[in-house]
């Protein structure tokens, strides 16, 4: 992964299993969001590839890429809802574009998706008229519009109060369990990481590669790398290791 000749991360290799919640973690500026952009097909990696079900994304022809993209749903950091459309139109657009459903069916599905994220009744609101937490949930509803196999979340809890952020975590887990979808979450919120993650990868800004891979709880207790342990213990790794230092 690189911008121009500046390499952000190299030698990344990991597998996301179907139906798991996979967390991409690391400190600020280590390239988490860039990695996400590679995975969702926004930015071509400097070298390497992203493979879905044995199908290479970056070596595929554009038609196949579009087909793959439709199996992904992305919830962006600040919602990224189209500001000139109501919430209902935001969620309805992919349905209108990619399915042959009737208008009434679309509006039923839109209402369902909004109800799933706790926003029933907000169909006719514009994004500028609802709060930040609601925007984020509406973004999740839009990501789910086409019933995708894989849902990506970029910093789902950034800028949310603890309760909203907890609810969003619960929503991610509930959706995974009921839809059987795969979830890929970029975050550095420890509470979130420990609540939702089945598996994770840790990107390090200094060595510019992944330095840990596995369940975060196991990594916290057993990872040999001090950077990872310190991150997962909010910087108190050495203090804990050195006994009661408070």
């Amino acid at each position: 992964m690189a911008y121009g000749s500046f390499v952000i991360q190299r030698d990344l290799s990991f597998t996301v299993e179907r139906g798991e919640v996979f967390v991409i973690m690391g400190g600020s500026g280590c390239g988490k969001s860039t990695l996400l952009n590679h995975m969702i097909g926004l930015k071509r990696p400097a070298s390497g590839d992203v493979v879905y079900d044995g199908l290479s994304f970056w070596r595929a022809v554009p038609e196949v890429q579009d087909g793959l993209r439709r199996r992904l749903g992305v919830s962006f950091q600040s919602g990224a809802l189209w500001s000139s459309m109501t919430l209902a139109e935001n969620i309805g657009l992919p349905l209108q574009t990619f399915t042959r459903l009737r208008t009434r069916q679309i509006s039923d599905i839109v209402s369902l998706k909004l109800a799933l994220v706790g926003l029933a009744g907000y169909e006719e609101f514009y994004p500028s008229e609802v709060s930040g937490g609601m925007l984020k949930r509406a973004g999740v509803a839009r990501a789910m519009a086409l019933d995708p196999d894989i849902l990506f979340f970029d910093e789902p809890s950034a800028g949310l109060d603890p309760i909203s952020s907890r609810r969003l975590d619960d929503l991610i887990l509930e959706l995974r369990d009921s839809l059987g979808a795969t979830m890929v979450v970029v975050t550095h919120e420890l509470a979130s990481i420990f609540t939702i993650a089945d598996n994770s990868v840790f990107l390090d800004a200094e060595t510019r590669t992944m330095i840990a891979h596995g369940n975060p709880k196991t990594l916290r207790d057993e990872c040999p790398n001090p950077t990872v342990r310190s991150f997962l213990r909010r910087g108190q790794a050495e203090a804990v290791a050195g006994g009661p230092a408070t």
Partner: protein
Amino acid sequence: MESAALEVRDPTLVVRRHGQDGAVLELTGTWLSQRDLPEPAGVLGQLRSGAIRRLAFDADRVTAWDSGLVTFVLKVLGETSTWGVAADRAGLPEGVRRLVALAEAVPERQTGRGGARPAWLARLGARAITKADGVLVGVTFLGESLQALGALLRRRARFRASDLFLVMQDCGPRALGIVTLISFLIGLILAFVGAVQLQQFGASIFVANLVAIAMLREIGCIMTAIVMSGRTGAAFAAQLGTMNTNQEIDALSTMGISPMEFLVLPRMLALIVMMPLLTVYSNVIGILGGAVVGTGMLGLGPTEYFEQTRAAAHVSDLLIGISKSVVFGVVVALAGCLRGMQSGRSAASVGLAATSAVVTSIVCLIVLDGMFAVILNVLGF
């Protein structure tokens, strides 16, 4: 969301009576929204006419499902619960049951949206009130900008000189290209129109008078102002609108820095300085454009043409054009800044702000130019 779809069969629905007042909905096949799903209305009619009090589901033979099944179940449950029907959801697929519970967890919010449109008289009244408020806001903004100018004269205005120079560079030297093109062509067109008429009387030399007076008094300043409104006024609106979206203007206000002084004043000053210079430049280029037609098409000598121009044009014509250009500069700057600061916090409203800035400033420019024409005529200039 699909469970393993081994066979693709049409979705079917059978209502089976169970006991005296019970019913079981038997669902089979692939319940994907892309396929034609049964309408809830039909089932609901059947249930209603059967005076059902208890409802159960049997979805064991559903091979695949997606949002289509969930919306169907939600509709049936929602409607029957208002009749007091007890529903047993145990027969639904596990995922559907959880999604239905999730969708019902937060009750629908009554937002009062989507109600009937108010009567036309009420809409007209509401629009009139909005327009009147708009005028008030415009006048207030003009007043505040004059206060900022006052602060500048008392050397108390707070803005960065580097900002002023940046804006000046952008709306001065960088606008030369487009002003050159427009003014040259306008001078050319004026001369053409005049030449066709004046040649009939053998008075082609008066093309020089026509071009000189029209450029100096009217066309030079108004064309420059319209170009600047499209080029710079819209840019001001977009920039300030985006700053408003990012709360940058709020950040200035909370630090006690007046956005009027910090953002509006430099833009207004830049146009006050640059508009007269651009207007004079536009006059010169316009007259050159006229001269091209005069010498090339009408066979006048260059010296003759410029001599005639010099005799026709008075210093007062030049000064009138320059004074108007100062006023026009203020109008373009204020319309752009006002619409930008009024802009809402979304991409769509920044676009609207830019449009509205150009419309506002062009309307004000033409109205003001008309007023200038009447006043100067009365005063005898």
